[in-house]
């Protein structure tokens, strides 16, 4: 059966060129980077080369990059530890209602532990209000955390403007770029970013590796205790193939970014046009364009439920995703769709389609062709819609 993978926001296949770059570090240059002998120094050199190259991509200094096991760890390290390390200054954190669970639940955890958290609203396309953000900052505020691009609806937040506000107010600014790194240009200097989370498997790199950028001079302690690795911020034997792979993947993504974005926006438009021909359907998030991740489309359908759509698409070889409550172990419908003001009943019929390097116009045609009868069938068996 034809396989069409349209879930690149969940994870991406490892680029073959990335695997090639990793290969020497599995069984040949396999040393522990802390070792003094040549196996160790070879590993250390590979790590430091990768660190420098990654830093360059976001205009950071090499020593500002801390390797972690992925986006979740980066978010936790940033939020928990900026919180606990700066409690002397204040206990107020500002974030949004549309963050990924890794940020959202870390903030809730801190809330339970006595921190005060302001949850910024977003408008119907998912954008935060800069005025509201600025007004929320008080003398007790230590951190603002606003994601760069939303994982469900692709909204690209105005991080440069947010960074400017944070800088002028003297509070740390963290941004989760797990969805945007390698797809949008990021410059931590120009954007005044103090902390930035990234995860390699979202840009055709390996799973189990990510990084946190931490601006020099930032007051922060490690989340885990152990040996002295990563300038004392993250102990544990370094995942050398992972680090090397992440560097390669990021550089490839940067090189191919422009071309990919143009292609993906074209395909995204094709999807939108095709889907909107189905009655009682709509698009969640901003229109296709510069303010939306090029590879993200989030569709809504009345009278059908997302999980059933995803399974029926999967039976046709198409991989997509939904923000439907039933797809989550928590049984709560997407907090993102709720935050943009979508009626609860409409939250259940969402479908996220996320494109990638391998996606072709043919794939999109196949998707559109298969989607229509599925929506039709599910509406037929649905008691809603009054037909």
């Amino acid at each position, binding site marked *: 059966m034809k396989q069409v993978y349209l879930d690149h926001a969940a994870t991406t296949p490892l680029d073959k060129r990335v695997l090639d770059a990793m290969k020497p570090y599995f069984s040949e240059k396999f040393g522990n980077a802390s070792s003094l002998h040549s196996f160790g120094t070879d590993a250390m050199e590979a790590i430091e080369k990768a660190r420098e190259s990654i830093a360059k991509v976001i205009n950071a200094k090499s020593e500002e990059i801390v390797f972690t096991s992925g986006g979740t760890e980066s978010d936790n390290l940033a939020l928990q530890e900026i919180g606990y390390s700066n409690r002397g200054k204040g206990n107020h954190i500002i974030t949004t209602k549309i963050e990924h669970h890794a940020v959202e639940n870390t903030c809730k955890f801190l809330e339970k532990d006595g921190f005060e958290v302001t949850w910024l609203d977003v408008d119907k396309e998912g954008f935060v209000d800069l005025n509201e953000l600025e007004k929320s900052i008080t003398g007790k505020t230590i951190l603002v955390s606003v994601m760069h691009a939303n994982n469900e609806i692709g909204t690209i937040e105005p991080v440069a403007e947010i960074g400017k506000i944070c800088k002028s107010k003297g509070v740390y600014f963290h941004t989760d770029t797990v969805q945007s790194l390698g797809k949008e240009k990021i410059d931590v200097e120009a954007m005044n970013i103090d902390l930035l989370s990234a995860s390699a498997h979202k840009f055709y790199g390996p799973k189990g590796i990510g990084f946190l950028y931490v601006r020099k001079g930032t007051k922060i302690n490690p989340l885990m205790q152990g040996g002295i690795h990563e300038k004392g911020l993250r102990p544990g034997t370094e995942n050398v193939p992972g680090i090397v792979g992440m560097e390669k993947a990021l550089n490839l993504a940067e090189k191919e970014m422009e071309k990919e974005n143009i292609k993906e926006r074209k395909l995204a438009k094709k999807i939108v046009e095709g889907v909107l021909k189905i009655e009682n359907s709509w698009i969640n998030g901003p229109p296709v364009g510069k303010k939306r991740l090029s590879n993200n489309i989030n569709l809504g359908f009345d009278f059908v*439920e997302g999980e059933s759509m995803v*399974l029926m698409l999967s039976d046709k070889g198409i991989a997509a995703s939904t923000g439907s*409550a*039933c797809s989550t172990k928590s049984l709560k419908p997407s907090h993102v769709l709720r935050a943009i003001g979508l009626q609860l009943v409409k939250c259940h019929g969402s479908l996220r389609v996320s494109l990638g390097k391998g996606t072709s116009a043919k794939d999109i045609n196949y998707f559109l062709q298969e989607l229509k009868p599925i929506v039709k069938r599910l509406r037929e*068996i649905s008691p*809603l819609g009054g037909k």
Partner: protein
Amino acid sequence: MYSKKVLETFRFPKNIGEIKNPDGLGKVGNPTCGDVMWVYIKVNKNKKGQEIIKDIKVKTFGCVAAISTSSVLTTMAKGMTLEDALKIDKQKIAKELGGLPPSKMHCSVLSMEGLRKAIEDYKNKKASAD
């Protein structure tokens, strides 16, 4: 997450649709919660004079588990006496499906309630017709 049986049943659900002029109709669920079932029944008497479910159909808005349990419930209930049909419980339905994730057990409850409401509706109608 789902058993093979759940997925198979989801792919080829039985008794989906509606019955024109049903003897009983049970509407359960809430669209804002993400699952709604409408259970339609036709009632007849068997040779012993007991009331049985002659035909049953269901319309479902909901997830994979909701659709699968709809199918399994209706298949089980078809031909049963009303008395027996009222005894179908969530465990029986889940078992028939090779198990359900804990978070999805409410779907089997919902289908069971839909059937009970349909039988109730039938009985009410009959009572008021008498």
